[in-house]
Every structure is written in structure tokens, then in C-alpha cells.
């Protein structure tokens, strides 16, 4: 047994633990199935091995061995493709689809989590080899925390104020507050919608948020999460009963019209608030130099 075996085993173990920690099945219900989990745990294990083995390679002056990390990068890009394909295939059969932006966000995070695992394993092994196992444990815990911090993004409640507004009809037009949602012709449908529907208005807290919540993918993500958590009063062949989000062009507020099966206002507000802000929807106009340039 050579001097590197223990550090490598340690690194691989810590890396795999990191992957397990980052693999949560929550209300988003993904990955739901055992096989999906197995795939990700195995890939996590491989990632951890790559990270851990890289350190002894460097120590032994085998610098070319590090090029194997590029193979790893290609490998994990495939993970992203795999996730994207699976979710896109399945999305067509959802009553309220996730939408492409949400799927892309999920796929990206699956890829990046593998890199976090490589980093964790690399760091833990490195510290083990340079100092000893006690420092390595501290380093491992530290990188687990860093990983946790890096994988958590902001949520909708950080960027908007959410208010409940009852739905109302003006003629055939359905409104949430003053935001027009759609035209519903049949009186019975209108009654159904008033009975089962709920309306919320999301007011952006600053100018960056206006374009973020205007993003169609972000809006679809909100609808999907609400429908997953509270159920949806809809079926195939009833397009009139489709949850929708429309925008107030004047001030960038958005009106959310949903048809949940559990109609509890506070719960719904919490669930809308917990929707992740999709990375692909984030815009930062306030960082633009042209905006901030003082005018003389």
C-alpha cells in the first residue's frame, strides 16, 4: 500500500458524500426515481475519483495526468445533455410544463454539481497529503459548506412582493387586479374560474427584476411549481383552464392566474416565493455603464 491510497480514499469518500448531500428530492420531484439517483451517485463517485487522483499525479510530477480532467469536463457536459433530453421528453406530458428555461437551469446545476464534487475531492486529498487527516477533515467540511453555498440561488420572494388579488371579469375579459389575463366567453367557464382560480400580483423590487420576471421561462417556472405543489384544476382538452401569467406593461408587475386544487392563500404565496430565480432569466440592467454614467 503506498502513501497515496489513504488520501485518495478519503478524497473519494468526501466527494461522494458531497454529491449525496447535493442530491435532494424535494417538491420539484426530481430526480424521483431510484435509477435516476443511482446514475447521479455513480457519476458523483467518478467525479470524486478524478478529483482525488489528480493530486498524487501532480505530486509525482506527472503533469500530463491532469489532462484527464478535460475528459471529465466532456463527460459531465454529457450529463447536462442527458438531463436536458430526459426532462424535455417528459415535459410534453405535463399538465403545466416546466418550460425550457427551467429545464436548462436544472441541467446546468447537475453539471456544475459534479464540478463541485471534483473540487471537494481535490481539496480534501491535497490537504490530507500536505498536512494530515485532521486538517483534511476540516478542509472537507469547509468545502462541503462552500459547495452548499454555491449551489443555492435566490428565490422569487427575494426579488418581488407577492400579493393576493381576487380574480374578476370585465365582460369576457379575466383580470387579476388591473392586469388582463385572457378572454373567457362561456359564462359557466367564467363561474368555474372565479370559483377555482386564484390571482396574485408580483411587484418587482427594483429595475433588474422587471426583466427577470418578464422572462417567459421564469413565468412558466412559477406556474409549474405552483401546480406541482398545490395541484392543478385542469385537464387535457380544457385549454380555457390553463394557468397563465401576464405582464402589466406600464410598471412591469406580473399577474399570476393559477387554478390550484388546494386553495390556501398563504400557502400559495409561500410557494410562489420559494420558486428559484432561474439563472438564465437574471438580467442586470443596473450594472450597465451607460445607465450609471452621470449626465452633464
Amino acid at each position, binding site marked *: 500500500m503506498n502513501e497515496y491510497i489513504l488520501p485518495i480514499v478519503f478524497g473519494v469518500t468526501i466527494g461522494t458524500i458531497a454529491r449525496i448531500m447535493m442530491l435532494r428530492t424535494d417538491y420539484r420531484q426530481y430526480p424521483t426515481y431510484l435509477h435516476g439517483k443511482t446514475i447521479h451517485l455513480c457519476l458523483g463517485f467518478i467525479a470524486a475519483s478524478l478529483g482525488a487522483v489528480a493530486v498524487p499525479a501532480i505530486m509525482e510530477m506527472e503533469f500530463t495526468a491532469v489532462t484527464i480532467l478535460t475528459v471529465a469536463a466532456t463527460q459531465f457536459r454529457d450529463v447536462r445533455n442527458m438531463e436536458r433530453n430526459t426532462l424535455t421528453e417528459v415535459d410534453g406530458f405535463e399538465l403545466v410544463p416546466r418550460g425550457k428555461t427551467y429545464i436548462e437551469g436544472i441541467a446546468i446545476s447537475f453539471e456544475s454539481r459534479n464540478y463541485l464534487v471534483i473540487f471537494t475531492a481535490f481539496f480534501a486529498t491535497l490537504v490530507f497529503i500536505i498536512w494530515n487527516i485532521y486538517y483534511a477533515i476540516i478542509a472537507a467540511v469547509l468545502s462541503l459548506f462552500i459547495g452548499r453555498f454555491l449551489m443555492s440561488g435566490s428565490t422569487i420572494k427575494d426579488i418581488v412582493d407577492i400579493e393576493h388579488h381576487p380574480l374578476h371579469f370585465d365582460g*369576457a375579459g379575466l383580470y387579476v387586479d388591473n392586469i388582463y389575463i385572457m378572454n373567457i*366567453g*362561456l*359564462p359557466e367557464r367564467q363561474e368555474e374560474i372565479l370559483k377555482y382560480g386564484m390571482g396574485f400580483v408580483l411587484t418587482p423590487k427594483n429595475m433588474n427584476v422587471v426583466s427577470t420576471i418578464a422572462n417567459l421561462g421564469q413565468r412558466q417556472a412559477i406556474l409549474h411549481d405552483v401546480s406541482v405543489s398545490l395541484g392543478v384544476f385542469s385537464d*387535457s382538452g380544457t*385549454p380555457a383552464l390553463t394557468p397563465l401569467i401576464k405582464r402589466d406593461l406600464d410598471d412591469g408587475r406580473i399577474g399570476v392566474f393559477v387554478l390550484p386544487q388546494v386553495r390556501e392563500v398563504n400557502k400559495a404565496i409561500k410557494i410562489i416565493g420559494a420558486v428559484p430565480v432561474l439563472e438564465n432569466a437574471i438580467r442586470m440592467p443596473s450594472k450597465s455603464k451607460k445607465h450609471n454614467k452621470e449626465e452633464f
Partner: protein
Amino acid sequence: MKIEKAILAVITLNESKISGGAPIFICDDQKELESVAANLEAITDGIAHALGEELFIIVKH
């Protein structure tokens, strides 16, 4: 070009106001109008939109 929305049917009480391409259903009273619209909505998987009291269209989204 892919057409994403299309008017599948027009249902009306007022014959004088309509003509043209989509299938047209002329009804005698408001009740019939609504029941025809509801049926067509269910059959075509479209949405019944009201353009006025006497004029409904079924639109596929």
C-alpha cells in the same frame, strides 16, 4: 410559417355581421349560442372567446 393560433369556428346570433372562411354556426338565442360554444370548445380542444354578446369564436391556441 407555422400557424399557432386559428379560429376554428364562429358562433353568432346575428347573421348579418358575419361571412367568410371559418365554419359558421348561427343560433336562435343566447342559450343555444352558449351550449353550441361549450360543445365546440370541448370537441375542438379550443377556447370559446366572446367578441360581444352575440358573437363567439372558438380559437385553437
